[in-house]
């Protein structure tokens, strides 16, 4: 539902600075007048610049492509930069940091650290011993155009962390790899330049920390801002891993 502007919006925001020993978590309300085209990005900067200069949050591209600004908006994990305030019927908007990540302060969480750990676990790079001595003066190896498109489809993940914040299993199992990791596995399995096969991923995926921990609640698929095919890929990897066990 769309609303005319001029509404007074109330933002209920979790405030907590772990760097400050006196700081205790609390919810603080800030009010501002809605303007046309207002996004949570614009609103939070207004609040920081005019009302509460200590407010912590993360934005980089503010265009929905870098994955920095995911937070829990009215109970749902979303990219704040491309969430428009006019989409909320009620003028009260609650902002919380994403769960499952280390809290830096207020709405800022350390997704960078978690994603680096994930990348090291999954080894999110092409495994091909020849790649170091590819002669780059020569024509590149050919690839079927449809295959290149398929790899790109799976390569579109922006590591925003929303799939983990929306994941029932992740809330119960800290060591669950989660949809972001499965999508990386799918991406490299689809890529013939990577010489790893299904059984190379068995130790990583063939247990409750891996694909068999998934309860199929599909929060990942529901909230992924890039609309990646998580459900299909998780099912596909499960099948592959099962066959790999022989």
């Amino acid at each position, binding site marked *: 539902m769309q609303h005319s502007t001029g509404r007074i919006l109330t933002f209920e925001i979790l405030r907590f600075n772990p760097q400050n020993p006196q700081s205790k978590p609390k919810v603080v309300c800030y009010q501002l007048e809605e303007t046309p085209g207002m*996004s949570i990005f614009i609103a939070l900067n207004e609040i920081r610049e005019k009302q509460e200069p200590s407010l912590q949050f993360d934005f980089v591209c503010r265009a929905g492509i870098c994955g920095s600004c995911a937070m829990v908006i009215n109970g749902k994990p979303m990219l704040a930069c491309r969430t428009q305030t006019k989409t909320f019927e009620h003028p009260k908007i609650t902002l919380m940091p994403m769960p499952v990540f280390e809290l830096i302060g207020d709405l800022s969480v350390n*997704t*960078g650290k978690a994603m680096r750990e994930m990348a090291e676990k999954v080894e999110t790079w092409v495994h091909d011993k020849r790649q170091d001595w590819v002669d780059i003066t020569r024509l590149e190896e050919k690839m079927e155009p449809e295959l290149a498109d398929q790899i790109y489809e799976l390569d579109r993940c922006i590591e925003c962390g929303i799939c983990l914040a929306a994941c029932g299993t992740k809330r119960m199992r800290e060591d669950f790899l989660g949809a972001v990791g499965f999508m990386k596995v799918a991406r490299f399995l689809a890529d013939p330049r990577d010489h790893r096969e299904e059984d190379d991923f068995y130790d990583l995926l063939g247990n409750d920390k891996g694909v068999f921990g998934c309860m199929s609640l599909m929060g990942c698929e529901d909230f992924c801002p890039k609309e990646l095919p998580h459900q299909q890929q998780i099912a596909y990897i499960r099948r592959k891993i099962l066959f790999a066990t022989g």
Partner: protein
Amino acid sequence: MKVVYTDSLVIGGGLAGLRVAIACKERGLDSIVLSLIPAKRSHSAAAQGGMQASLANSFKGLGDNEDVHFEDTVKGSDWGCDQKVARMFVHTAPKAIRQLAAWGVPWSRVTGGDRQVVVNAEKVTVTESQESHGLITARDFGGTKKWRTCYTSDGTGHSMLYAMDNRAIQEGIDIQDRKEAIALIHEGDQCYGAIVRDLITGELIAYVAKATTVATGGYGRLYSITTNAIICEGTGQALVLETGKAPLGNMEAVQFHPTAIVTVGILVTEGCRGDGGVLRDVDGYRFMPDYEPDKKELASRDVVSRRMTEHMRKGKGVPSPYGDHLWLDITLLGRAHIEKNLREVKDICESFLGIDPAEEWIPVRPTQHYSMGGIRTNEKGMSPGLKGLFSAGEAACWDLHGFNRLGGNSVAETVVAGMIIGEYVADYIDETDLYIPSGLIKEFLRQEQQKMDTLLHRPTGESAFAIRKEMQEIMMENVGIFRKGPHLEEAVNKLTLLLARARKVGVKTKQLGGNPELTEALKLEKQIKLALCVTVGAAKRTESRGAHAREDFPQRDDVHWLKRTLTYWETPADDLPTLAYEDLDISSMELPPGFRGYGKKNISPHPDTAKREAQVAQAQAAHADRHELQQALMPIELPSRYQGKNERYLKGLN
């Protein structure tokens, strides 16, 4: 006192910085990358449309090679670039694409057979040969003779950055995020590293290195309306400026991109026009052919932005509460093409405008986009002012782009410069023994700590946020697409007053760590100094060249202005920068200054141009082989591993 030692310190975790670190690591050197944010979130990811490299695989790219790419780049720069650098770049770009292919970038490929494309608003059938099926394809971009821009859908920068960062992780490179460099450690003519602030704890750390590379991107956020990510604040350039020894180059060279959406300034890629989209005015009329009958919407970016502004000044803009705009029409490309090749554009239109670009026109206007100027370096990427200080990518004025950058040459520069300069950084480290003056490090740490303490202890003072906003408005208003002497002078005066105010700002939040207000206040003075460098440079340059368009001096004046602006900030308390100039030497140019072919020719030619043209003609007659001719006209050096000729489909190594 916390001190970290390394061989190669890289400030900035985008494509250029990561590539330099990888080059050093491959040579067995210890390398640390510092980044404000997780590296994969860098602004490199925003490059949607593609990367130029003369692979010549697709039908519309046939006949392309280094020479054509070189000519397009030099013309695009309005002869302001360093031609040797442009040559080094075009020779290495195909290798960069192929290396990234080996590292996992899923470049879009040629499909053999017939396909429909839109050229000049008409559907045309192109037949790709079956032999090129599966090679890396390319799309059309502005200001290029051939279709040369390689891409992955419209997420090119994303795919490249992910492949690069993953490669860095594979190499075990130490990438430290949420770290901001706030000063360079230097003495005499030597750079020793940087003083760095941990943005989580607020703690200061000294990073001491044999070589320090600044790869922090551009300074678009000096402007209120920009396509740049919010981290592109020019702090890397400011660190270098504040040494008082190392110059910045051509800071007045600032590009405006024709198509950012209104109001928020988010970019929609040049690929929209490259793939056949057109610009329309308030009457729905396609106006670009009237101004540029030859290249139309695909003239160089600076030209299209100026033509759009001219047209809006004639009352042909579409009025909106946020000022006038024009329309970008991609509906003629068809839904299937948009949903496959321009999906980010569709996403952006849906999320930020609530429109479907397959059905509706996109409201766009020219918006600050790229910083051609930056940290001046030599061909090897090293600063002429401080040994051990390097720069690469948009942060640098290596000087590939002169006064205007071609679309698709930006991500290309980041990777290519990273490859080439990375080798030279490693060479420098191999050849250098550094004596580390620990007293100096301590002194630099003390100075920066004191600046922080002063800010925290000042009882009152203006808000840094408010002053920054004023600066951004001044730059937008007075130092934009079209410039005029009186407006520039006014901006200099206003910015000087702002600088004085910036030196007295206060912060309400009195804590070291987790304090965005303090982070902002600490870099405010730096940003205003940079804004002054841009503005003073623009005021002094009494000609029009590339993106620097003076209404009071519309002529390109090669007699007086075929030179590069160098800007210094001599002592910290100065109120204005000091300018110097270095000449571009016509007698060593492979492509003597000429006419770019847009609008009316209005050039005051340099007397040496005719002489050089004659020499070039003579050399062309003497050398049948294009590689020999190139070497005879303008010999270049490259790291040995990048010297080889580039193979092309049908052409082999010719």
